[in-house]
């Protein structure tokens, strides 16, 4: 088996470790979200949700726990969408030409970059969960050790599939563009609507119908659903909303994310196959 993608992965991880400020911000940013946005909002929201009547005997999940799943999802989205950008540096410094001129299959560039993006997303997810538990996020409450393990695995699978989908998209877009400004512009344009039309920070039940429609096709919604199912449970109240997830909901969500990843893979695959490094170089 050709393992060239592992080489691409190896190099990208070297770069990840080597740029200390970048490494630092990648790891600290999600923690800052939890620490500031999370604690700030939860102190307010929890005050409001006291007034929501709940069925007797049921306790609402606090906001910090509710949004921790959202922060994992958001971080995965950002990291994945911007994960393809390293390809732009490879193009600018010519390493892309070195790779395309080699006998290695071109799709391995895509796989290698995606694998390193997934690794980063998983590291971040683990960090957010650890830090979250430290500041009072009630993930896995009442779970047995086996259940915690299964839940961790479930979250990892959701994060991986979702992350791949957006990494492929990002890699495909980056391969087609030449400038940093262009790539960053598109990615920023994508993050806003994706993030705020999802259930990451608040329930979508209160949305007007048009926003609701967007949230239904938004992959982020399905990632958040998956994480909440595994981390919080299949039946809970949060922010005055009753959440129930069946195993079918979860499988359906995973199916949706898988189809999304397959489509973006197709897009990236076509782009990489067409990539022609000789155009625009030399005379």
């Amino acid at each position, binding site marked *: 088996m050709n393992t060239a993608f592992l080489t691409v992965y190896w190099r990208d991880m070297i770069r990840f470790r080597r740029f200390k400020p970048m490494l630092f911000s990648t790891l600290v940013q999600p923690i800052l979200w939890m620490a500031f946005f999370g604690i700030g909002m939860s102190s307010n929201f929890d005050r409001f949700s006291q007034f929501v009547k709940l069925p007797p005997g049921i306790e609402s999940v606090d906001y910090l726990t509710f949004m921790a799943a959202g922060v994992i999802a958001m971080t995965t989205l950002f990291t994945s969408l911007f994960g393809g950008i390293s390809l732009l540096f490879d193009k600018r410094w010519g*390493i892309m030409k*070195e790779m395309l001129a080699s006998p290695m299959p071109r799709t391995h560039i895509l796989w290698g970059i995606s694998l390193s993006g997934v690794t980063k997303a998983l590291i971040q997810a683990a960090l957010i969960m650890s830090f979250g538990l430290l500041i009072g996020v009630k993930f896995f409450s009442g779970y047995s050790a086996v259940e915690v393990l299964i839940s961790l695995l479930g979250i990892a699978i959701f994060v991986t599939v979702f992350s791949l989908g957006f990494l492929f998209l990002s890699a495909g877009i980056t391969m087609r563009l030449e400038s940093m400004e262009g790539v960053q512009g598109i990615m920023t344009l994508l993050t806003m609507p994706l993030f705020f039309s999802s259930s990451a920070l608040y329930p979508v039940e209160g949305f007007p119908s048009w926003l609701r429609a967007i949230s239904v096709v938004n992959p982020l919604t399905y990632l958040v659903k998956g994480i909440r199912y595994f981390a919080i449970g299949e039946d809970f109240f949060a922010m005055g909303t009753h959440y129930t997830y069946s195993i079918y909901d979860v499988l359906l969500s995973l199916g949706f994310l898988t189809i999304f990843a397959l489509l973006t893979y197709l897009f990236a695959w076509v782009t990489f196959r067409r990539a022609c490094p000789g155009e625009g170089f030399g005379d």
Partner: protein
Amino acid sequence: MNAIIEVEDLHHSYGDFTAVNGISFRVHTGEIFSFLGPNGAGKSTTINILTTLLPLQRGRVRVNGYDVRKEKKRVRESIGIVFQDEVLDGDLTVWETLEFHGRIYGMPRAERRERIEEMLKLADLEEKTEERVKYLSGGMRRRLEIARGLMTRPAVLFLDEPTLGLDPQTRYRIWKYIEKVNREGTTIFLTTHYMEEADSLSSRISIIDHGKIVITGTSEELKNSIGKDLIYLETVNKEKASQIIGSFSEVRGVRDSLRGLEVSLEADGQRFLPRLIVSLEKEGVEITSISLKKPTLDDVFLHYTGRELRDEGPQGKKVAMRRRRGR
């Protein structure tokens, strides 16, 4: 002799612009073959097609026996490339740069590690193994790129303007290095717009201009093709002068050149020149200036294209600047 590169009737255009307009040539196993020509002549386009970086539009190209259209992977396995622009990740170390290259070419680990040691020695970079590439000098980086191109023991090494933007001393060291690599058995295909580079390195040279090969041969053959010695002469009365000069049996040909007449000789110019001056003066032809020289590749280029190779114009400067900015 065995041809390791065979090109027949190669054409390539970018939209309306024809960059390569029907060229054919062969590169023999073991030689250093150069494409000499000004910027925009079609050198890089040709090298990009030969190395599979550009699709083959028209013509037949075989490298190491493989068809560049149908057997891309085989061609890629057979060659090493040093690009015109610097292609290095400044944040990797010298060792990592070579390791990365060996791995994407699928070299087994033991062979790779052994080869890295050899390449570091060859490029004289053993002391710099753990150094980040961005801290190396321009010459070291170029040597590293050449070493990397050689790492996979290619049948042909392609060098696209290998000394562009380097200072004369570094350039000389790179030449010595290329010669050494060639002596150890690697066939080299080189493009350059430096006449000295083509002259001092090449077994054979093709002069290329406006997408066509003007003439091919050894440096000696090319120079001899325009005469043993050359006289450049400036005078007001070109017509009469050329008539008189043409009557000498030592003269092979007289041509109009940029500023006066270009006279190519069959005989030793040093002995001929005094006689020529005397006879021109006797006929009343006033000579503004006169010079005698051995033909260089520059003269060869001028002779066949009517332009000077050094006349790069603004485009040449732009390329050099782009390269500097890229560092």
